[in-house]
């Protein structure tokens, strides 16, 4: 029995090793792709309603699906431009936060399939983040919370640098393998949905060029993660391509919230360092205080009632 179990674990470990060691591999639908990618089974039902989801998640999918099929993005945009940080915006934040959090991979899948509608759901999703950035009193914090698929405290185990020969801008890339200490939103993505997760690690990619905003100032500098150090990260899933049964995606630090450090904040001597105080918690905050403040804000968003 022990032997069988050991062999089974060995096979699983081998499979995972093969699958996660993707530096020299590419998804079958994207020959030449460089970097870490994830694979998931394509969803059959779209939107991915199920009887276990909460009413808020159901409404979130229903609203996005209806908007994409029946509304015009211009009208929606005009409507949203008239909103301040009011009941409408805060209620939308609640629904979308919960919808993404419920099953991030399915949300990505939904956005892919929904793109065939006249006004795709991703335009509404990223449009909402843009509105949050413009109206929220804590713009980067709220936009990062809404837009992220996965938020966690991580410990960097290894960094692999490479030049992406396919890229036109984001050439200087880093693939990061990190263990997760505390997860605030989402669940650890598995390389393949059918395999169990053995180690609580996550792999993601970032590019140096993202940090160069354009204007020359002290902030116009590169941001690098370092081996052996801990960080708070806000990550998003990005679609790469699909084949007949799978969707392939990669994981980036969130880009749409306009953070100067792509929402990656180092933890030094037990304090979270947010050099530009983007999150509004201070430039150096005790990790436990940070946990509390972040959890409070998440609860405010998720439980908002007008």
């Amino acid at each position, binding site marked *: 029995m022990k032997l069988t179990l050991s062999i089974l674990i060995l096979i699983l470990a081998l499979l995972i090793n093969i699958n996660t060691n993707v530096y020299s591999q590419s998804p079958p*639908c*994207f020959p030449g*792709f460089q*970097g870490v990618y994830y694979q998931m089974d394509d969803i059959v039902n779209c939107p991915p309603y199920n009887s276990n989801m909460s009413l808020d998640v159901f409404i979130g999918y229903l609203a996005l699906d209806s908007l994409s099929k029946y509304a015009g*993005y*211009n009208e929606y*945009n*005009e409507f949203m*431009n*008239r909103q*301040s940080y009011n009941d409408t915006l805060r209620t939308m934040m609640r629904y979308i936060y919960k919808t993404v959090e419920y099953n991030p991979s399915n949300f990505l899948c939904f*956005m*892919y399939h929904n*793109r*065939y*509608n*006249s*006004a*795709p759901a*991703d*335009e509404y999703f*990223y449009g909402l983040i*843009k*509105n949050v950035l*413009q109206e929220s009193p804590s713009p980067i914090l709220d936009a990062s919370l809404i837009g992220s698929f996965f938020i966690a405290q991580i410990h960097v185990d290894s960094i692999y640098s490479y030049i*992406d020969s*396919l*890229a*036109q*801008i*984001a*050439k200087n*890339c880093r693939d990061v393998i990190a263990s997760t200490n505390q997860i605030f939103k989402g669940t650890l993505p598995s390389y393949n949905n059918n395999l169990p997760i053995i180690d609580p690690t996550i792999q993601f*990619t970032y*590019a140096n*060029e993202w940090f*160069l*905003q*354009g*204007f*020359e100032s002290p902030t116009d500098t590169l941001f690098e993660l370092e081996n052996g150090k801990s960080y708070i990260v806000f990550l998003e899933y*990005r*679609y*790469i*391509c*699909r084949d007949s049964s799978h969707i392939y995606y*990669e994981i*980036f630090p969130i*880009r*749409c919230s306009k953070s100067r450090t792509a929402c990656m904040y180092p933890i030094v001597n037990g304090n979270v360092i947010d050099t530009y105080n983007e999150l509004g918690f201070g430039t150096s905050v005790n990790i436990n205080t940070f946990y509390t403040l972040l959890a409070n804000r998440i609860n405010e968003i998720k439980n908002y009632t007008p």
Partner: protein
Amino acid sequence: MKKFILLILLFGVFSNFVDAQDENCGVHINCDPNREYPYRFCDGITRCTANPADEVNPGVVKAPFPVCLSYNPDKGPHNVMLSNGPGLVEVFDDSKVEADMHCAEFQWNCLCGMQNADCLCMINLVWTQEPKDIEDPTSRVAEAATRWAGCIVKCNGTGFPPSIIVLNNTTGFNYPKNTNSRRILVNSDCEYYKVNQNWDGLANNTLNLCDIITHELGHIYGLKHYNEKPICAPIITLANGIMNSNAKANQAKRELTDDDKCAFSRLYCNAVHVENSDSLFSKIQVKTYPTPTQSTLNIEFTINGVAVDLIFQVFNETGKLVYDNGYYFPNQGLNRITTDFSFLTNGIYYFKIHSMKNVFSGKFVIAK
């Protein structure tokens, strides 16, 4: 000999065409002097201003004018994977890409009479298959990666990374309308680039390449989207300008609107004569009184044609909606809207009265 004459004739026709195009360059542009447009300022923030050339500390990000576009055919798209369509297809013809780049350059240069000037800034145009290159690769047709130093755009491929215009060629960019479609860029004459026109998916999903490049080049020049915040006053979200963020499918090349022309020429050729607009503002006589007012404002306007339902809205200086009366049902002839604005604080406000097709607007002052 016949061939020689034919060539002369063709040259003559072409010359006339060029002359005819140039005749319209650098001429008077009608602008409403009160109308503001959004620009990218040197601190990276978008603000509205009616006088961009006068802005200092921070000023508006400018590009050395005129800008030329370059294109390396080796890095062009050539083959595009239409994952739900006919598979791998050769899409672009290099010579046509060149033509559309010049089309975009000409649209802006012509406004200031600079269509024949030597370019002072070279910006590369590239296609990318890599999702990392685009901030939102699933829905964006293209992005201008505008990077600047000392408030001047980094040109000529210099800097790390340089300013660049990226066109989306990622596999994820694969919508909309139906499962056999992908948005395809076409040239100015609406020809498809080496794509079988009989393929169903193409018919409803074409975007004009010259328009797309013109829009992105507008960003390089410092212009921002009209239909995103900050919304400038008087409200211009209904303007059908090239700098609106939503690309329109299935259309031939668009001409620059008065808004596009004014936004650009105020920044790059302020010497060009700008005069008051002969637009709806003067065609429809609008009278507001008293102004400044403490609370009650009367707005009078005359409708000479068929009266249609109107929407009456008021915005503050930052473009936020502060009053929305919903639909207003006017009469033919003289109309008066009397509204109590005692709930507003002191300041300048902008009102907009618009139908589905037309909009007219003005401003008033609350002083208590």
